[in-house]
């Protein structure tokens, strides 16, 4: 609820209020008449802006360049960051799940340009626009989705141009003459003809160092030297505060204000300048210097305490062997190159179902010291999902005499089993009836396979191949 002159109006409504037909801009008296017992809270625009900024800084977990779009929007430039989350769709899913958990209602859109994403999030359904698909997606949206001022909006509506699609096929000169430069400018930004720089938020407390250049730079070798200089200057800053970097954002401010950002993460807090330089240099190929770079800012956007003297840290690792530190460096390089989800260790899970026997743990997690039960032979390759085979056994519960897999018949020379595995009914109801009888078999050629029958033979149990090789 806000004050608009003498009138008290609604500044914002939540989903429940919207269901009662309330909307922003409605007078408070009207709203209270419609919904008796309506809970009104005085609007606090400053607090909202501060909250939006806090949320923006939180969003830096996804990408280095995050800009607020007051009063209620955030723009994130995910260029080069999506792979860390396994792609664009998982990235959006992660943002939306985390926001939902904290009770923030949000609609997410991902597009080539901030303008297109903005329009889609507010006037469309959100979602991901494939590269080059901006024009098509925007066409059915109202012209308000272009971020136009109310005057330009009204002017367009007066002549019946209500959809963006109606603008794109009109001659540009006529549009400019009739409606002024703003309409074309906004349209070009949404479609990507006009660049749109984002003013990145910076967490005030993050250690950061910057280099300004007298002349714009762009050569790869120069950028490598810049990276190394920045790291060398950031390290004393981290040392002074007793911190180690877990995540570094390097933002190159381009002459045309289209900032380029790269981000690296480390598996352990680090302030080893050479190591950090190497990780950043690995990503430099993603930087497009355009017409030149004026300024480079290196910011440790995630830090963790790290002991005052690195020697003590070193000593603890030397106890485990001189390579422990080296391993962290290797893991970091792989994490930067492949993304966090693709480097891991595997650890045992106490589960009878083979496909559930393995879970991932971080590559540098402390040794767990547990192994799978070693008394039962297991296949070297597990087929997921198991592949159906036809098999023939003489009598119930006897191992099969042969099986046919992918049109090849395998005669079984030796076999062992059954090893009965029951479904974990406490995990899902669907598994209550799951019974598998596993057989280890060796063909006449000596190949070993892992077969199972998903029910007793009398109940028409089918045969499946689940694994190859045996150890």
């Amino acid at each position, binding site marked *: 609820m806000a004050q608009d002159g003498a009138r008290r109006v609604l500044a914002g409504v939540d989903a429940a209020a919207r269901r009662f037909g309330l909307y922003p801009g409605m007078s408070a008296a009207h709203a209270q008449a419609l919904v008796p017992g309506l809970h009104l809270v005085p609007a606090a625009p400053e607090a909202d802006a501060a909250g939006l900024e806090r949320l923006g800084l939180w969003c830096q977990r996804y990408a280095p360049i995050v800009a607020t779009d007051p009063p209620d929007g955030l723009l994130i430039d995910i260029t080069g960051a999506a792979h860390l989350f396994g792609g664009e769709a998982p990235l959006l899913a992660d943002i939306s799940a985390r926001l939902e958990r904290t009770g923030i209602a949000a609609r997410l859109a991902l597009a080539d340009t901030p303008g297109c994403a903005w329009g889609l999030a507010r006037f469309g359904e959100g979602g991901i626009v494939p590269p080059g698909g901006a024009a098509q997606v925007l066409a059915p949206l109202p012209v308000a989705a272009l971020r136009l001022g109310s005057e330009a909006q009204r002017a367009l509506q007066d002549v019946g141009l209500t959809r963006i699609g109606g603008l794109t096929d009109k001659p540009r000169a006529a549009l400019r003459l009739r409606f002024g430069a703003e309409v074309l400018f906004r349209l070009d930004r949404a479609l990507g003809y006009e660049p749109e720089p984002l003013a990145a938020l910076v967490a005030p407390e993050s250690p950061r160092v910057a280099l300004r250049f007298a002349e714009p730079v762009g050569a790869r070798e120069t950028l490598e030297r810049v990276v190394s200089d920045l790291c060398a200057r950031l390290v004393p800053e981290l040392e002074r505060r007793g911190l180690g970097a877990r995540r570094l954002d390097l933002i190159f401010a381009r002459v045309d204000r289209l900032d380029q950002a790269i981000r690296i993460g480390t598996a352990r807090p680090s302030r080893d300048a050479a190591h950090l330089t190497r990780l950043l240099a690995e990503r430099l190929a993603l930087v497009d210097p355009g017409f030149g770079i004026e300024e480079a800012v290196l910011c440790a956007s995630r830090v963790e305490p790290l002991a005052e003297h690195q020697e003590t840290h070193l000593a603890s690792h030397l106890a485990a062997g001189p390579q422990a530190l080296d391993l962290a460096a*290797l893991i970091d390089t792989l994490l930067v190159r492949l993304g966090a989800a693709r480097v891991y*260790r595997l650890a045992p899970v106490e589960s009878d179902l083979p496909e559930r026997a393995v879970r991932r743990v971080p590559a540098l997690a402390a040794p767990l010291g547990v192994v799978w039960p070693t008394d039962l032979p297991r296949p070297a*390759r*597990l087929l997921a999902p198991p592949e159906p085979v036809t098999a023939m056994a003489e009598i119930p519960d006897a191992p099969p005499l042969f099986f046919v897999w992918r049109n090849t018949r395998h005669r079984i020379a030796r076999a062992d089993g059954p090893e009965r595995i029951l479904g974990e009914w406490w995990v899902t109801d669907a598994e209550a009836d799951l019974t598998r009888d596993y057989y280890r078999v060796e063909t006449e050629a*000596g190949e070993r396979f892992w077969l199972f029958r998903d029910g007793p033979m009398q109940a028409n149990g089918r045969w499946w191949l689940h694994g190859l090789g045996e150890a």
Partner: protein
Amino acid sequence: MPPPHSPDAPTLAELRRLTDSVGTGAGPDAAPTLPFGVAGLDAALPGGGLALGALHQIHEGGPRGRYAATAVLFAGGILARLNGPVLWCLHSRDLFAPALARVGLHPDRVVYCETWRDTEVLPAMEEGLRHRGLAGVVGELTRMTLTPSRRLQLAAEGSGVTALVVHRLCAGEAAEPEPSAARTRWRVAPAPSDGMSRRMGRPRWRLELQRSRGGAPGAWIVEACDAQGRLAVPASLADRPAAPERVQRRAAR
């Protein structure tokens, strides 16, 4: 090119040792090796065992080359008998880690990275090979040409980390191996276990050393890796040289 940072720069003594060994084709004689504990096998390898700090290729014999199930166990058994962490570059998600634990490779020692394509496996392997202290780097590859194999071999020599390439055959691909700079090339295939009984015994492999720089090729029937990654000579075959005709043909090349 060797990595630029100083800890990897060879000392003068190391360089001397390297220059002395130039031309012998066998690498430095003092290079550490890992014996298999199978007499005939170790005798065929220069230095009496698998050269550490070198590149070795493992092909899967038999019709299931796409899965290379025996080859990964052979690789796992070698690494189980070394100390230190292992980097395993995966080609797909079908590797079943409990089987590696069964040949003695503890899960705490293995860092997996999902490098789905050969073009990702090779740089990841090279990166791993630059880090001293790893026991070994395994890469599952569909094919490796001469140049990448040279790079891997050089990186392995530089750091002393052992590189194992497990070849996974693609459908329709020629099984004939390409030239490579690897120190040895193996072909591992399942072999029928003891013919007498219907019971499942310890699996057997037909282990063929197809190419060995400075050593002799050969083929052996062995008992598969045990829980410590050790191979063994089958009791019934202990005195029988396996597949001699093939050995001679390869040696004559």
